[in-house]
């Protein structure tokens, strides 16, 4: 069932690239240069094989049947939960809720915790850097409860205004929801300090870790966060699954999010008793194959020296920033002191969308648009950016290809 992966002592980029089959794909007759990992990461062979193996050797429902296949499926599913707990350094796997992904995790907390404990006059603090998925669920619960939303602004570099954050916190603040790393700009927020400040006024903190998980080592105990959410697909696992870590006492106090099978202890028409955490938040048959792949993705990351991988990514990001900045007419959006994985920019005279099409024809995949972060775009008074985002498999050669591609864009547009 499981693929054994030899433990690499240092970061071997050639070997990492060889682990990802899609990197040898040709697109439009050109070798693929994949610079869209903040959108979704590519998957190593071990993850692809784990989902395939599940369907070949274990396909059945979890927690329900007495037969061997169900035992295997349950083992894969609960094994992934334990792996996720280790990945986040959560003390207890029961504090790990398996979700559909980051968006699902945030909606769960907003509707279960927020809707139960917020009341009129309470405040939710968000930031201008947030992805729409860490804005809209809070707007919905604010409307339902009468709570108000406060927003921390950003400076010209794309960093949160920490003075304003301190001013916005008050005894009215019940929830702070903030991204660990910005998907649009790559800014790493100082969340450990922000969490301590929020706790000082009695607020709970949800950290959107979707963009942090593939790059940074995460320790929920050290951060002391109340909720941490992430998506498997951004960290080399399959789509459609992810994790909500929650502080045990909070999860236990929260009502179920959705009703259905597997989330109950007993059902009668008089009184239904809910299951224990985390199962009371996991109604219905989940994405078992996806979770099996997610477990393999965490295994994959555990074979990699994360610090060495991050140093490699930082080198590629610094190189990209320097090379792109040299191109006449380029404006880089987001120059925070602490960044990871993302380079957002504009090219004068060529709309990002046109640049995206021209780059695509050269085999280069970037994202163009608002990146589900319209407030960030509004803040910089721009409609969209070109975003090159990195995974552990990217190289300086990928950046050279991007630079060459951008000169082609300039040639087509005569700028």
């Amino acid at each position, binding site marked *: 069932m499981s693929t054994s992966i030899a433990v690499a002592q240092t970061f071997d980029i050639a070997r990492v690239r060889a682990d990802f089959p899609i990197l040898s794909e040709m697109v*439009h*007759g050109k070798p693929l240069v994949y610079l869209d990992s903040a959108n979704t990461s590519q998957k190593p062979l071990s993850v692809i094989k784990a989902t395939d193996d599940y369907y070949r050797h274990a396909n059945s429902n979890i927690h329900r049947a007495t037969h061997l296949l169900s035992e295997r499926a349950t083992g894969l599913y609960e094994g992934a939960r334990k792996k996720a707990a280790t990945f986040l350094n959560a003390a207890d796997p029961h504090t790990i809720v398996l979700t559909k992904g980051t968006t699902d995790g945030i909606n769960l907390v907003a509707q279960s915790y927020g809707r139960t404990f917020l009341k009129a006059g309470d405040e939710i603090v968000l930031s201008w850097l947030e992805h729409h998925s860490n804005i809209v669920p809070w707007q919905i619960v604010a409307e339902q409860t009468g709570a108000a939303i406060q927003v921390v602004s950003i400076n010209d570099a794309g960093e949160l205004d920490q003075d304003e954050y301190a001013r916005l916190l008050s005894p009215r603040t019940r929830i702070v929801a903030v991204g660990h790393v910005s998907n649009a700009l790559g800014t790493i927020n100082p969340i450990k300090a922000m969490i301590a400040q929020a706790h000082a006024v009695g607020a709970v903190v949800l950290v959107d870790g979707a963009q942090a998980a593939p790059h940074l080592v995460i320790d929920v105990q050290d951060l002391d966060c109340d909720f941490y959410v992430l998506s498997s697909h951004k960290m080399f696992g399959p789509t459609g699954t992810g994790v909500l870590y929650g502080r045990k006492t909070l999860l236990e106090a929260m009502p179920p999010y959705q009703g259905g099978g597997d989330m109950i202890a007993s059902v009668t028409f008089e009184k239904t008793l809910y299951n224990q955490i985390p199962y009371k938040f996991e109604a219905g048959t989940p994405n078992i194959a996806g979770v099996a792949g997610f477990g393999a993705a965490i295994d994959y990351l555990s074979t990699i020296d994360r610090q060495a991988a991050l140093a490699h990514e930082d080198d590629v990001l610094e190189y990209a920033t320097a090379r792109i900045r040299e191109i006449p007419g380029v404006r880089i959006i987001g120059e925070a002191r602490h960044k990871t994985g993302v380079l957002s920019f504009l090219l004068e005279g*060529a*709309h*990002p*969308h*046109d640049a995206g*099409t*021209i780059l695509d*024809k050269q085999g280069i995949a970037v994202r*163009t*648009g*608002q990146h589900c972060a*319209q407030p960030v*775009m509004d803040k910089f008074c721009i*409609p*969209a950016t070109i975003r090159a985002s990195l995974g552990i498999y990217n190289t300086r050669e990928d950046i050279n290809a991007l630079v060459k591609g951008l000169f082609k864009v300039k040639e*087509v*547009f*005569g700028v």
Partner: protein
Amino acid sequence: MSELSDLYQEVILDHNRRPHNFRVIDGATAKQEGYNPLCGDRLTLYLTLEGDVIKDAAFQGQGCAISKASASLMTDAIKGKSVEEARDLFEHFHAMITADTDTQQEDMGKLSVLAGVREFPTRIKCASLAWHTMKAAVAHETDAPVSTE
């Protein structure tokens, strides 16, 4: 294989640099916003209708070369046409940018420079934004922005 030069023809690049009818019509009889939130293309279309005839058409906004050139060419094409003729033109235009390459197309005149879009499926929404906006404007269907995403 489709070529970039099929999409980014000189005529399109010209319309992008110097769009026709890129202005506000004061006292327009119809005004409609079009917005593709994922890519950020946004335009406001102004029409002056006299009875059933589009006497004047203009637009303002920001967007990619394809959406701007399409709005520029469309406003040229619908001026002087009846609402019914403009709707017909939209149907033919839509067929042109979404059809299989082999399908015999009606002669679309100047609009045919946008036929290359059909080889770039992700860009169809760019080329059609102005047209959907026009369709809503003449129908007074909605005050909400039109989207092609």
